[in-house]
């Protein structure tokens, strides 16, 4: 049972945030009042 060092926690968090934030942002922005649809 090994604990992650703080550096690893930060790097994992930042890495996954980099991967997932654009997708989440896209989903949030897709709820808009567009006149096209």
């Amino acid at each position, binding site marked *: *049972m*090994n*604990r*992650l*060092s703080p550096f*690893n*926690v930060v*790097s*994992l968090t*930042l*890495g*996954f945030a*980099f*991967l*997932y934030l*654009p*997708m989440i*942002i*896209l989903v949030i*922005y897709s709820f808009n009042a567009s006149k096209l649809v």
Partner: protein
Amino acid sequence: MRRLILIAIPYVWLLALFLIPFVIVVKISLSDTALARPPYFPQWDWSLGWAGIKDFFAELDFENFWFLTTDDLYWKAYLSSLRIALISTLMTLLVGFPIAYGMARAPEHWRPTLMMLVILPFWTSFLIRVYSWMGILSQNGLLNALLLGIGVIDEPLIILNTDTAVYIGIVYTSLPFRSLPIYAALEKLDGSLLEAAEDLGCSRLSAFWLVTVPLSKQGVIAGCFLVFIPAIGEFVIPSLLGGSETLMIGKVLYEEFFSNRDWPVASAVAVILLLILIIPIVLFQRNQQKQAEAEG
């Protein structure tokens, strides 16, 4: 006999779906443009008999390949693609290695979950993910709004439609390809080796540098090739995120094919791109073979 049949199946697949289309592309690259459907000349006609076949081969020439050397655009595009691919590979390493390292050092029961989290973006649409970066990086997009709101900058940063956006796009889409081979190499690393290094007097940092990095070299090299080879031929990312000065060979190929309707020159560009890529692909294969031999 049965083994021959078993090997024959992937060979037939490759023959039908790679070799024959490639021969067709080479043939088109040797033809001339024509205002016809399809837009090249000569075309293979079985009914013309032996004389027809001889005429067919007489019409093929290397004119398009000579044309590629005369126009500056093409070699500049090749060089620019090479540059962008190399820099993107380096940047992906800087971003992907910490992720792989964190994954490899995580507790055992987390690792499948973390691996699934890294692979999951592949299950979503590639194009939509690139579109999301367009929204973030544009001048009145999220990043600029955030930075302006905090007060770090006074004017919006111009990131979209530049090379920087292309780098970000390639790093973003290649990140899982980069992390997974490095993670595979790091997971095999024995924790006791690092303990032994520290017992012998290494600091944490030099233990990392002297033990972890050389042992993960195989994974790093495999990841490099997995990012570099697709990055050279990228079209979607430079087309959506790059500007008009972003010269990449994928974009040039697309424009040559669809805007100029010049199938022969486009095919010549494609053939030369494949020839250029053969070198890293052969190196990659050799690297993989060496790794397999070293293990088994």
